[in-house]
């Protein structure tokens, strides 16, 4: 029977299955960071267990790390303790760590791919919901909780139930000014934040094939915001070209063997999905969110929905509540709305191509003096590349802040935050109440829209500047 890539990946990783119980899946790569892991290591210690395969486990520090000068001590005592705890845990259990001063430090979902750790056909887990990012390589990648981290550390396996298969087919060419971020924001606006619940998504179609690996990562990254467990893109020449020569990618004869294996992964002709949604790439506009979940998004020039037009009372109330929090009115478009902060960063959009895109717009221009603009590269590697290309000078000359790598204002755990009531156009992935700081109002958008809004000081359709 023809199988989808989702089923192939699943079948090849089942270690043991008992009727009535979830399947025991083998995990090829376990990524660890400081926030979700301490209680898992503690539990191992209490049970006197070791890490079964420390060499399949890689740790980094990203969430609570300051994005200011790294030679200074970390002022936030609790963050410092959490970071020190991860360092101690990695040492005790023999896990490689790309720590605060490593030249490979970065957001876990940025460094996995750039180091070549993430490879097609793998199962990848991390105690972080945006692990879905790694699905861009044709890996089965999903976020886990702390008990599951403990489970993987102890057994290199995870108990999982089979998910439904969901094909998202995106065909056609994107218009100028429309990017990968807009594809995923449009999908979530279409299916809703619970639309993918219980499913694993495979992204297919000519528009997906045309995306670079970094753009595919942007799409897969936000899969979780549509409620799906994981999202993936079948590997192809774009994938192989990206991986070849990366530090952990196979070399020589191993590389050829790996590519031959990876070529078997794409879904078979005629494989059936439990569900399919199609999106016409040509019809997409730059997207922006206006509410307090990533599903509350509209085309940038479209009027915001009005609570009065909602038939369902629950939806009406949710919309009213979101608009109140956001200080916005239904019926009008967001374009022209004043902006206080622009954040370009996060595991969704902090890779070199994102920074290049933002720089291309900011070059020779100034950001509006009323706007604080933060550019935070996703990793040390991204930073090095940006420096080599002269991007920091462009950002600084335009009046933006150029920071050290980390999650930063995506989650506002490290001292970078948006003040109460302020509007932030952010390239990150979540706009929940308080996500970017208490009372912060987040508008999610692409790096292009973010850079354009930085220049004008108001929410802007980037096409007016191209």
């Amino acid at each position, binding site marked *: 029977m023809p199988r989808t890539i989702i089923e192939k990946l699943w079948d090849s990783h089942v270690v043991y299955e008992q009727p009535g*119980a979830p399947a025991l899946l083998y995990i090829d790569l376990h990524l660890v960071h400081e926030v979700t892991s301490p209680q898992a290591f503690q539990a191992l210690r209490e049970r006197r267990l070791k890490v079964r395969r420390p060499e399949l486990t890689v740790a980094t520090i990203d969430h609570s790390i300051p994005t200011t000068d790294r030679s200074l001590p970390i002022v936030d005592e609790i963050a410092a303790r959490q970071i020190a705890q991860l360092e101690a845990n990695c040492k005790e259990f023999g896990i490689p760590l790309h720590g605060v001063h490593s030249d490979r430090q970065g957001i876990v979902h940025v460094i996995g791919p750039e180091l070549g750790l993430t490879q097609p056909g793998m199962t990848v887990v991390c105690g972080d919901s945006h692990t879905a990012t790694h699905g861009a390589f044709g890996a089965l990648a999903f976020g886990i*909780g702390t008990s599951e981290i403990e489970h993987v550390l102890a057994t290199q396996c995870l108990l999982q139930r089979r998910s439904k298969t969901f094909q998202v087919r995106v065909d056609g060419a994107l218009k100028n000014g429309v990017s990968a971020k807009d594809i995923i924001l449009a999908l979530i606006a279409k299916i809703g934040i619970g639309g993918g619940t219980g499913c694993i998504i495979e992204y297919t179609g000519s528009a997906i094939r045309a995306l670079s690996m970094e753009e595919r990562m942007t799409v897969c990254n936000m899969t979780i915001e549509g409620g799906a467990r994981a999202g993936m893109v079948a590997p192809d020449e774009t994938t192989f070209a990206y991986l070849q020569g990366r530090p952990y990618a196979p070399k020589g004869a191993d590389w050829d063997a790996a590519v031959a294996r990876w070529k078997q992964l794409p879904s078979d002709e005629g494989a059936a999905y439990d569900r399919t949604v199609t999106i016409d790439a040509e019809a997409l506009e730059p997207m922006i969110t206006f509410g307090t979940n990533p599903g509350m998004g509209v085309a940038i020039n479209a009027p915001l929905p009005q609570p009065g037009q909602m038939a369902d009372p629950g939806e009406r109330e949710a919309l009213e509540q979101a608009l109140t929090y956001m200080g916005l009115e239904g019926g009008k478009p967001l374009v022209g709305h004043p902006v206080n902060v622009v954040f370009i960063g996060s595991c969704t959009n902090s890779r070199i191509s994102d920074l290049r895109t933002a720089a291309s717009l900011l070059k020779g221009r100034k950001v509006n003096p009323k706007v604080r603009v933060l550019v935070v590269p996703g990793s040390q590697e991204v930073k090095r590349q940006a420096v080599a290309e002269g991007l920091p000078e462009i950002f600084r000359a335009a009046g933006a802040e150029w920071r050290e790598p980390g999650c930063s204002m995506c989650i506002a755990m490290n001292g970078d935050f948006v003040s109460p009531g302020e509007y932030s156009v952010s390239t990150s992935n979540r706009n929940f109440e308080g996500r970017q700081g208490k009372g912060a109002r987040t508008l999610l958008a692409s790096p292009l829209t973010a850079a354009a809004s930085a220049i004008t000081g108001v929410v802007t359709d980037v096409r007016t500047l191209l």
Partner: protein
Amino acid sequence: MKFQNLSSRMVPFPQRNIDTDQIIPARFLKTISKEGLGDNLFCDWRYDAQGKPRPDFILNQPRSQGAQVLLAGDNFGCGSSREHAPWALTQFGFRALISTSFADIFRANSLKNGLLPIIVPPDIHAELFEAVAKDPNVEVQIDLPNQTLTTPSGRKVEFAVDSFSKHCLLEGVDEVGYTLQREPEITAFEARRAGSVNTLA
């Protein structure tokens, strides 16, 4: 902790799409233990700018003290995968959640931490909200072995829970223990795949 059958008042929380950032804000994730999270459950709604409890917030009201069941709006627990959310809920005293739907990861995390998420049809969900609105002291009965929930009006509804999670909840055993017994299968699997995986080492 073994899951016992329970009769309890319900804390109604009708908002839809409550995400884990609301349940426990990210700034409480810097902890390296599980202690103290219950006090910060729904922190940004529960306390004012000075850190004083807001008397109008439901969790601060006498009716919520000692309640073991949270009656939640649709799609409860979306957003970040943090397990701090079920930890905070169980530390507050909740043992079961009732909604029409839960986010996947949150649901799985809850089951692993002795917190039972119960999915009910929309009409039962509405009935429960009406019942607590009329009388905050009404109780639901939850019978896990028989997988039934009895509403205050006496309607008995079955709910689904997979047999594995049910077994773990009732026995108070956890998944790590289960999997450690599968050691021979894991080793055999690793041996079988030796050349094809692990380009990492």
